[in-house]
């Protein structure tokens, strides 16, 4: 489903050069759930943002469902419809109601009728457990509710892949569970997911594979049971000892 080869992304920030993603190669199969962990600044977000073209990369290839983002002929907007993204800060549209947040892109991008878009939106809101909030504005919702709306908004486009960038990091602890529950349901339903997170418990429970990144490189990857319980690399061991 996703194939990444020798991906390099360099930032030039005020004189010095940051190799945020430095030669990453990996594959994500359809239906697979991959969890990415690593210290702050290790390039996890940048890697994830390269997967849906929010960040342009300097060299290498990102192939999504057969379409190479490095190929200039690829229509990036077409690829993005198939790749949903959930952000740490939710990024809901504050001037739209919850329902409109879910229907807007369906109508504008997928050209669905309003009735069709609303039916889809209501079904998804029920699925993430906030059907009763459809006419509220996002600012009236709790963080956990906002993040569930954001997940539903991405799902409304019927993506083939879902990317999550630390979806629970901005939440109060008591709200983390409700968001993780939605993600677990998705994983069980066979959604292809790439999740950047510090929730090792979640990773162990639902991930098919874990990736540990540091300084833009994949240091170690493998089944979560092994990676998180019995890491081989010293850097992985150090990181996990700090997180757990």
């Amino acid at each position, binding site marked *: 489903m996703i194939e990444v080869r020798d991906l390099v992304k360099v930032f030039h920030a005020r004189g010095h050069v940051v190799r945020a993603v430095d030669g990453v190669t990996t594959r994500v199969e359809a239906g697979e759930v991959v969890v990415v962990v690593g210290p702050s600044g290790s390039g996890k977000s940048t890697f994830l943002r390269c997967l849906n073209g*929010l960040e342009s990369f300097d060299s290498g290839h990102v192939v999504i469902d057969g379409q190479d983002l490095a190929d200039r002929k690829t229509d990036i907007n077409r690829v993005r*419809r198939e790749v949903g993204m959930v952000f740490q800060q939710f*990024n809901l549209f*504050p001037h739209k109601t919850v329902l409109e947040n879910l229907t*807007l892109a369906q109508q504008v991008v997928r050209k669905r009728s309003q009735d069709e878009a609303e039916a889809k939106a209501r079904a998804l809101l029920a699925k993430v457990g906030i059907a009763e909030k459809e006419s509220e504005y996002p600012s009236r919702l709790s963080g956990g509710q906002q993040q569930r709306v954001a997940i539903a908004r991405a799902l409304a*486009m019927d993506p083939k892949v879902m990317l999550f960038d630390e979806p629970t990091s901005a939440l109060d602890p008591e709200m983390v569970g409700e968001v993780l529950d939605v993600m677990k349901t998705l994983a069980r339903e066979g959604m292809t997911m790439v999740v950047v997170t510090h929730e090792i418990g979640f990773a162990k429970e639902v991930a098919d594979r874990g990736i540990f990144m540091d300084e833009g490189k994949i240091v170690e990857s493998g089944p979560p049971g092994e990676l998180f319980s019995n890491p081989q690399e010293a850097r992985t061991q150090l990181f996990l000892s700090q997180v757990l």
Partner: protein
Amino acid sequence: MNARARTWPWYLLLAVILLGVAASLWGATQRIDYTWRWKRIPQYFVYRGEDVATVPADGRVEEVREAGDEAVVVFVDETGERHEFRVAAGTVRVSPGEDLFAGDPVGSTFAWRTGPLLNGLWTTLWLSFFSGILGLLLGLVAGLCRVAKNPTLRGLSVVYVEVIRGTPLLVQIFIFYFFLGTVLDLDRIVAGVLALAVFAGAYVAEIVRAGIQSIPRGQMEAARSLGMNVPQAMRHIILPQALKRTLPPLAGQFISLIKDSSLVSVIAITDLTKSGREVITSTFATFEIWFTVAAMYFVITGLLSQVIQWMERRLAVSD
């Protein structure tokens, strides 16, 4: 402690200072021996204009009859056609049986007319309105270009904004009138409106740019990640939020425009300021007219900023 009890002495002081300023202004005019003629001013707002009714052809007055405070004059011309004139009583200048020639006066009617000050105010208002609308469109386009990725568009917008903001409006008006007006054969009104619009547009562009850039990056990223292209994201996500934030500064810019429009009087557009100058040449009530003109601008801008404050409160509620 009661906050009200503590602030009233300061308001008292404020009143004393304002009264002091007014008193010293009055004292200053006493010393130069100026005779104030405020009574002459109202007629330049509205006055009762006199229309003299005249006969269209040679003929004879058949009848003059009074009807309340009006008089009816019946006049028959050479071809035998009857004409009836209604004029104000007491202004009738003919008597029954009198022979008249074409163009001779019969009597007068009176009607309220707007004087030069109100006419000038009206010109100022629609001049500001049209250049404001045009400036808004121009500024919106320039502001969007300013945040575009394309270096050509960005460069054009930067040059436009910097040139306009770096030169005096008075000079721009002269250039529009004498240079562009001559080259493109523009009417002075068109030149004036264009100059004001181009001037306002540069400031609107900066307001629009600031508004767009004040929207968190995550909004654009979320829209793009849903598959929207840049124009779609701008139209549905960024601009609605940005415009809401820019409404107050845009309205402030419009108030500035009303004041700045006084400069078009230099190219002989009869706006409020020019009307004031014209009235002065016939009355010599220089001080009174300028104070009146200032007060008129102040009332208009004051009313507008009240409306804006009300609008801002409404918008704050819907957040």
